[in-house]
């Protein structure tokens, strides 16, 4: 039995309405690489943030070695105990040089000559992990390519000054590396583990996980559902474990979907920018079309592409009718935080309310009240500030804004992120109702369940459409397989 380095016990974390982690129990041992897999939003990154001390859990215990360190566990404690993390988003300072970034992680690099020592430390590690990397200690990080920045960050996490690097967490480390460099990294991970280190590897590339990890933990909906030796797993068994959500009578209504395609006019025809072959995105009147695949594989860009070309007809594209967008990230591109709920809803429909260049406050009020009734925004007064609403109700207001505008085509950029189940059901009903009236929806979602509300699903991988599934032929396995395929 290898020596256990860290033990997480009953760890739980909630973000608003979303239960990110539920009763997680996991151990990390010396001389072992643990692979962590799961679909988007399964809680992998949150769990790693808890381990690295950047997110404090609501419940549960964190034991390092023989000590219970739950109380006051934070980044500093994690560092002192030799836990390092390469986060998914880049966390180097772009305005500093490579050597200076090494200094940020290592307080011990100070005094006369620190710059030289920091440079030697980081370049030495880079030489060890990525031979032929082509990075110099004096390079400003902001001038480096994304791949090189990622290499610097990985090397930095493995570098050692006065505190050992016992447990290194790699969250999607290969996503911006090419295959040669990725292979260098995975080989280094094996060497590092062989010399007694411990490593957590998170990746969507299942082949990587199967070849590198000793043990694989699978997360679904904030829970660790399965921990097994990697040799007991195959690609198919992993995919099956990740998608073990109960299925119901989702495969019904297949025939109805096809008839929508036959009888109704084509509203949108488009391809992701840069893709010339393969399936096209087709949307007919009254249809709900889902964009699936792993996060960040070109779905949001596809929506942006359609939105940018609205009212025009570039070669190879067709967009028939006005377009509106429901934003996914409420805080940055959704709500106007200083405005009332009513204003937030009516802002897209201002033009129809004008008389002599002035907005008619009466029609504004009528429209706001109308939508409050129709989609049930829970507020005593529509003139209250938008921030007085819960997240789910804010999202409803954004739906009201989009649906209130005279647009046939509604784009949705993962709008249900962080919304509670009750509100989701209400919004699904509204979408179905509006679709029945002849509107069409293009819906990017990271939640598997939501795809079953769609008549047609397009799976994205590497900024291209790789699969085109009609409702009756769509299953969770098929979507997962298409999302992961090229990784093997």
């Amino acid at each position: 039995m290898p020596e256990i380095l860290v033990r997480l016990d009953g760890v739980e974390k909630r973000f608003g309405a979303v239960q990110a982690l539920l009763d997680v129990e996991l151990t990390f041992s010396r001389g072992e690489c643990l692979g962590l897999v799961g679909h988007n939003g399964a809680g992998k990154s949150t769990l790693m943030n808890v381990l690295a001390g950047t997110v404090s859990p609501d419940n549960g215990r964190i034991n390092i070695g023989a000590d219970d360190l739950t109380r006051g566990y934070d980044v500093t404690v994690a560092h002192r105990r030799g836990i390092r993390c390469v986060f998914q988003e880049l966390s180097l300072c772009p305005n500093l040089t490579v050597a200076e970034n090494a200094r940020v992680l290592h307080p011990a690099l100070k005094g006369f000559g620190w710059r030289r020592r920091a440079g030697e430390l980081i370049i030495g590690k880079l030489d060890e992990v990525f031979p032929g990397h082509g990075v110099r200690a004096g390079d400003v990080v902001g001038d480096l390519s994304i791949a090189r920045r990622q290499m610097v960050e990985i090397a930095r996490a493995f570098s050692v000054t006065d505190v050992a690097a016992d447990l290194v967490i790699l969250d999607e480390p290969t996503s911006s590396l090419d295959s040669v460099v990725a292979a260098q990294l995975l080989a280094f991970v094996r060497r590092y583990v062989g010399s007694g280190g411990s490593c957590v590897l998170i990746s969507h590339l299942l082949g990587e996980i199967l070849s590198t990890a000793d043990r694989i933990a699978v997360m679904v909906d904030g829970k660790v559902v399965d921990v097994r030796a990697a040799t007991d797993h195959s690609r198919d068994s992993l995919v099956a474990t990740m998608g073990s959500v109960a299925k119901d009578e989702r495969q019904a209504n297949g025939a109805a979907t096809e008839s929508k395609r036959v009888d109704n006019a084509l509203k949108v025809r488009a391809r992701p920018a840069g893709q010339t072959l393969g399936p096209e995105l087709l949307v007919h009147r009254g249809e709900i079309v889902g964009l699936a695949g792993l996060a960040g594989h070109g779905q949001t860009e596809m929506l942006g592409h359609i939105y940018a070309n609205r009212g025009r007809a570039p070669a190879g594209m067709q967009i028939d009718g006005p377009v509106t967008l429901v934003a996914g990230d409420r805080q940055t591109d959704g709500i106007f935080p200083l405005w009332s709920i009513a204003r937030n809803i009516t802002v897209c429909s201002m033009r129809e309310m004008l008389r002599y260049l002035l907005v008619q406050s009466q029609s504004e009020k009528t429209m706001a009240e109308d939508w409050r009734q129709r989609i049930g925004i829970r507020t005593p007064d529509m003139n209250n500030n938008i921030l007085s609403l819960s997240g789910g109700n804010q999202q409803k207001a954004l739906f009201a804004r989009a649906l209130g505008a005279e647009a046939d085509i509604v784009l949705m950029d993962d709008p249900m992120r962080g919304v509670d189940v009750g509100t989701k059901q209400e919004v699904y009903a509204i979408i179905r109702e509006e679709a029945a009236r002849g509107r069409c929806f293009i819906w990017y979602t990271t939640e598997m369940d939501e795809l079953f509300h769609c008549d047609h699903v397009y799976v994205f991988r590497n900024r291209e459409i790789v699969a085109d599934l009609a409702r009756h032929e769509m299953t969770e396995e098929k979507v997962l397989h298409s999302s992961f395929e090229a990784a093997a």
Partner: protein
Amino acid sequence: MTDLAVAQRSLRGLPSLILSPRFLRSALPALSLTVLLLAIFYLQPRTMSYFGLNLLLNLALPIAFATIAQMCVITVNDLDLGIGAYVGLVAAIGATWLNDTPLLGVAALLGCIAIYAALGALIHLRNLPSIVVTLGMSFVWLGLALLVLPTPGGKAPDWIQAIMKFRTPWLPFTIYASVGVALIVHVALMRSAYGAILRGAGGNPRSVARAGWSLLRTKMTMFALAGFFGMLSGLSLIGLTTSADANIALRYTLLSIAGVILGGGEFVGGRISPVGAVIGAMTLTLAASFLSFLRLPPDWQIGAQGGILIVVLAFRAIINRAEARR
């Protein structure tokens, strides 16, 4: 490879180095200062003397200090809209309390720096926009200055006057002092180990915090430094003018921001250059003289100064765009 081949290769690399956007960008502040200085020498050859340079650059030192103060705040992605009024308050304290009751004067000045550090803490802890806090404080500073010195007057301590009027060999005192300040701040912020953390806090605060550093401490340090250099600005100013006025330095607020940007700094992202900031302050000072030598009516001078600023920044934008295209 033979030594000759190496030498040849590095020589061939030289023009591309000089024309590389990165080099041009860092050389731009010095280049604009040189061009301006040459233009002045051409228009008025008599400025090319010890006395002439002294007159030209006399007021550059207080502006350089104020610019360094502003740069400290900009390093951590904030902006100080109260630095001008603060310099006025320091001048008022310097010309009254520091001269009459030195102990009270020193205590008051240290108190001012402490308040600056506290502002940094307030902005960080309450997550307030710095422009609102510092703009509000500018009225507080001005009010305090008027309380200390209701009408223009007072007298600067003799030792400050003696320092500012010190006759150094070869070149005027201002030039030595500016070079000294630029080098000291450069070593402290750009070369020291903690300086890297301070700049990193402007570049990617989250990553610095994740590495276990206190952002509160970095912000308080930078604001305290701003208070310190603002104090040096006020004291050097009264050393030149010998008396003070609460409104003496109100225009420093915008001058200091312009100086930082002219010197190659950026508003966000912790990209700063202490040497560039000092050069920027000198360029702004000289720009005023340059326009007088052109016999431009005073009414037009502020606008023309803005014009010079736009030209230099346009060059920088062009360089940046060239870099982005590659």
